[in-house]
């Protein structure tokens, strides 16, 4: 029997190190593969609308007529793009002041029990599934709007209200983190100058943390823009640009949700839906870019 020289033998801990490192590299590689294939597949499907010559890109983006089943089918997706932006903006306008107040309440007004009270509330609100928000919107907000305002109740206002509650936790938690990480001496020097709490908040705290709070708002808007089912349930899904807040409309996500299952793969209508998915994806990139820019500004 020959004894192997010790030099050639791989020691056990080296082997362990190697296997562990290989496995972890595989996991990271998988992430890269997933995102590359996701971008590739959605983009290639979404672009085929324009490359196959059925629809011009300007018609898709700015055309206001969506009638894929008409005699002369037209694929104008502008009503859906407008609807998505509209509900997202209104939801952000409703939710941002509320969230900033909640964050101020937790960090500046009553830091002790305010945090104890609001932290679980925020966590619970963010944990409630979107279909449940849609269900509550459909059975509470829609009847309320129908009885108090003109129209059917379903529409832009209902969608924006449901979305604003959904994005409250996102904005609040980011804003509260930003406020809590503010250097203490900034506040103290303002108080030492004789400023009241509100003066300190309005002139010192909010301007300093503005980029960080905006990060939260953008993250909330990204969530609102991509939300599908809750909006679909309450917005009414009419393919027109809404003229008032109480008229029904559609968003990119609600149209995809409703129509994707009823169209055959490869038909012009189906391709147009994929182009909408591509628009959603490009908007995600825009939101991530905005967040990164805001974070960079926040560092200085």
């Amino acid at each position, binding site marked *: 029997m020959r004894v192997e020289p010790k030099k050639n033998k791989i020691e056990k801990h080296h082997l362990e190190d190697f296997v*562990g490192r290989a496995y972890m590299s595989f996991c990271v590689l998988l992430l890269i593969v997933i*995102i590359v294939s996701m971008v590739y597949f959605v983009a290639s499907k979404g672009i085929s609308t324009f490359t196959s010559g059925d629809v011009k890109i300007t018609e898709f983006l700015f055309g206001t007529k969506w009638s894929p089943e008409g005699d002369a089918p037209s694929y104008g997706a502008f009503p859906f793009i407008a609807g998505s932006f509209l509900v997202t903006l209104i939801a952000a306008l409703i939710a941002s002041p509320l969230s900033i107040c909640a964050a101020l309440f937790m960090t500046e007004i009553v830091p002790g029990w305010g945090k104890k009270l609001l932290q679980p509330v925020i966590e619970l609100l963010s944990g409630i599934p*979107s279909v449940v928000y849609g269900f509550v919107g459909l059975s509470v907000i829609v009847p309320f709007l129908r009885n108090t305002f003109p129209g059917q109740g379903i529409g832009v206002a209902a969608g924006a209200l449901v979305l604003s509650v959904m994005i409250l936790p996102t904005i609040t938690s980011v804003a509260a983190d930003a406020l809590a990480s503010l250097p203490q001496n900034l506040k103290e020097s303002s108080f030492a100058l004789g400023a*009241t709490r509100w*003066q300190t908040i309005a002139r010192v705290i909010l301007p300093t943390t503005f980029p960080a709070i905006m990060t939260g708002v953008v993250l909330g808007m990204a969530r609102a823009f991509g939300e599908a089912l809750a909006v679909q349930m309450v917005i009414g899904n009419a393919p027109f640009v809404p003229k008032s807040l109480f008229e029904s409309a559609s968003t990119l*996500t609600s149209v995809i949700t409703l129509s994707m299952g009823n169209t055959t793969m490869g038909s012009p209508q189906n391709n147009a839906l994929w182009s909408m998915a591509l628009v959603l994806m490009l908007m995600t990139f825009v939101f991530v870019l905005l967040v990164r820019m805001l974070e960079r500004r926040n560092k200085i």
Partner: protein
Amino acid sequence: MKPRTADKIATALIVFFALLIVAILIGLLGYILVRGLNHISWDFLTSAPQKIRAGGGVGPQLFNSIYLLVLTLIITVPLGLGAGIFMAEYARPGKLTNFIRLIVEVLSSFPSIVVGLFGLLLIVNTFDLGFSLVSGALALTFFNLPLMVRITEQAFRTVPKQQKEAGFALGLSKWKIVTNVLFPVALPTIITGTILSAGRVFGEAAALMFTAGMSSPRLDFSNWNPSSPTSPLNPFRPAETLAVHIWKINSEGLAPDAAQIAAGASAVLVITVLIFNLAARYFGRVIYRKLTASKRMS
């Protein structure tokens, strides 16, 4: 206006809006539970849904949701742990690391419907797995993986540096330090995060409509052979989850008691998410106490 009056008004407004959020949550939970709880019974939780008659339940949907969650966690937890540990302990600051971080950020902010469509295109059609539990679990993996990576990375970053240095001083290999020194300390945070992410996956619907499907075949709950088409354990059968079911009966429900079923199912969903939240807190605390009080360090 005097600064003092302005201060009082502003404080009152801030307190009012903060309490308004608390009121919204209480109203929401109260509404869901009050409307839903009296429709929940053992029969509702176990019987199959009815298409056009009243009295259907959500048994198969509830089972599908839980089974899908288990399948998803089996796939995501090991992958997320691997990538997260890599990001926390092995990745050196540089272009590649920044790129991976950007990927995790983008992947976690993709709308779930885009993830579902990608699943439809790649898994359901190209890989030809059809509308099935496996397709759903894979779509949820795309959805959940970035979250797991982030949770793991954060958990590892909070471990005190001295613990790692002590391991190096003893001459341990990097792998030994990661698995036997850092991992036990990071585990409570990882478990808490995993349970919380499971709550999110449990309520997810948009990504599942196009991958796991919107129907459930007739299931035979006495048949536990995973390869039989009527077995609940068969991973290649279509499966409608509870969240998808709520969406479906709200938008196209034909049963006369559709509203009650939606209320009951919503209550079940919310209660489950509440249980996930409480469990995450509880386990996090218990395991933290166990691991930090015990002498088993290496």
